[in-house]
């Protein structure tokens, strides 16, 4: 702890008595209150606008999305997408109870595995923690039923998002996370995913699928009435 005390001591000496100094109690209070700063108006709109915003922005990011009325329509929507993309009818599904309601047997040709991503898996299907309309961002959290590798290893990622999970801003998601995990506590990984993987590292031209998924397809399950407001 010699280095720790040396660094903190040096900082203290240089900052003592300077403008903007607060005491530890004030700092602790600021952390406890975690007040939002200015939040852009763009995402703070009723649900139908949030959905439209999310879909437009997803498209602009070279992602794709599809609306389904109910979880029971997910298998057909997944199979349709895989056929369109000329991909094998084989997916790896997160061992997530929220996806257990999906009646996969309706698509007998579709092979569904469950568990963590393996190097050979081409397509993953996950449920999301939440989403943010402001920038068409998916929010994923790690847990035994939602392994993070499914969001990154396969070349194609299909995410199931219920419209009731579509928030306007990141700040709304933070409040939900605090409620779920407790103040100041987060799961190991909290991932904000905005479109498919990309790189501009070869002559500044945009290429998709650098290391993460080349394709990001979002299935919007309409489970909330669109006129419910925010």
């Amino acid at each position, binding site marked *: 702890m010699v280095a720790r005390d040396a660094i903190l001591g040096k900082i203290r000496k240089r900052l003592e008595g300077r403008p903007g100094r*607060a005491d530890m109690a004030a700092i602790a209070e600021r952390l406890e209150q*975690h007040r939002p700063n200015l939040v852009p108006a763009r995402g703070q709109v009723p649900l139908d606008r949030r959905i439209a915003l999310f879909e437009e922005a997803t498209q602009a990011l070279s992602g794709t999305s599809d609306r389904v009325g109910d979880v029971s329509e997910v298998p057909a929507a997944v199979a349709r997408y895989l056929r369109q993309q000329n991909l094998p009818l084989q997916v790896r599904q997160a061992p997530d109870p929220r996806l257990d309601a999906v009646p996969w047997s309706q698509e007998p040709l579709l092979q569904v595995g469950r568990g963590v991503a393996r190097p050979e898996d081409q397509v993953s299907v996950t449920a999301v923690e939440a989403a943010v309309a402001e920038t068409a961002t998916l929010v994923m959290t790690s*847990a035994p039923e939602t392994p993070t590798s499914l969001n990154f290893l396969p070349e194609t990622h299909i995410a199931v998002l219920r419209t009731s999970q579509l928030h306007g801003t990141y700040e709304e998601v933070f409040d939900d996370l605090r409620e779920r995990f407790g103040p100041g506590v987060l799961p190991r990984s909290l991932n904000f995913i905005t479109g498919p993987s990309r790189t*501009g590292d070869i002559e500044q031209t945009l290429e998709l699928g*650098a290391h993460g998924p080349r394709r990001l397809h979002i299935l919007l399950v309409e489970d909330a009435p669109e006129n419910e407001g925010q």
Partner: protein
Amino acid sequence: MQPTSLDFKDNAKAALADPNLQRAMAKLREGFVNRRGTATEALPEFEALRDQSRDIKDHVLANLDHYLECYEERVEESGGHLHWCETAEDAREAILRICRSVGAKTVTKGKSMIGEEIAINPFLEAAGIEPVETDLGEYIVQLRGETPSHIIAPAIHVTKEQVAADFRDRHTEFPADRSLDEAPTLVAEARQVLRQRYLEADVGITGANFLVAETGSSIIVTNEGNGDLTQILPRVHIVMATLEKLVPTLEDAATILRVLARSATGQEFSTYTTVSTGPRREGDLDGPEQYHVILLDNGRSEMLGSEFQDVLRCIRCGACMNHCPVYQAVGGHSYGWVYPGPVGSVLTPALIGVEQGRHLPNASTFCGRCEEVCPMRIPLPKMLRHWREKEFEKHLNPATQRFGLKAWAFVAKRPRLYRFVTRIAASLMRTKAGGKGRLSSLPLAKGWTAHRDLAAPEGPGFLQQWQAKGRR
């Protein structure tokens, strides 16, 4: 990394004569600059968010000791380990200790400027551990044995053909006659090669864009997803971060994130923003078993409370260099150390000493574009001026320049003498210019007139006109 900042002039000359680099720099002007303009105009709150971002960082810097203590507590509560390191050497040793403790042979790395600053790659190699860069640009630069020339686009100076040649040379597992003409093929090949490296690696090292005091988390932003595969697949995740990366809360991070991507690449949000907190939890099927944070000072604490404190607000977006006429002309390698562009010209003298970095504060036209676009509103030109003052105090600039400045100061402090001398000089220049009104050479200013003509003064000067019009 051994600095070559003292060779700035020679480096710059070579850069100006390099057609590949000049082509890349022309593209940068169209690409990053225009995209930033479009993205910032699309968000009405952008300017107000810049103000708030500046205020958040100012508040953190003024209370950095407190925030570090809060952060430390949270890291430990979440099962992570914090390693306080005063110097680059301390950081290298701490990283090596962790690698050795798990018998690491390969280490994958996400993009990190601190990694360059502490030169971790050669150090690990010397210790028998293979570091593998995974960001595509960093990977290319590593294959070529070079250093990054831009903080967010490390291989911006390399052409597609050069990448193809390097891949053909190094990826010998593929048929030698394969086609590598197009960028998508190159990206796909790198993806395939690096995929294997992620799976083999024992340790993954990433940098951090932010450390969050509220939760003890580190945050990285990437577009490729390499930083994520680097940290979730190996058994150990090491984060390298400097003290000033701290922000109080997730809300504060969100505010700064809203200006970061827009300023950097002109995206609304980077593809992957990843918040990592501690090791994998009980029952988790993936994620690292160990989470370490290398918390590095390396000269930052010395900058607190000094005239250079504001530069610690920097979030490494690269906007200042993208918009800098000097960077646009000479590229990043000319600056001779880790951080190029205007922010590099302020940081480098602070981190490696003004003697070594003394040319950099002069590599500026003081046009002020950097400050105009800096999302954190860092007064970069003012700080460059502070460095020039320090150089003068330390007698680091050439004797002729010092004599010239002193002579000018002597004259400028005496208004009558000043008027007399300038009137004579103006009339001499007028005569020498003849009817052309332009001077193609001038004693003591050959460096200036070598590349352009100087307009000769015409007619009476301002003061003469002012007097003639009855001071109105």
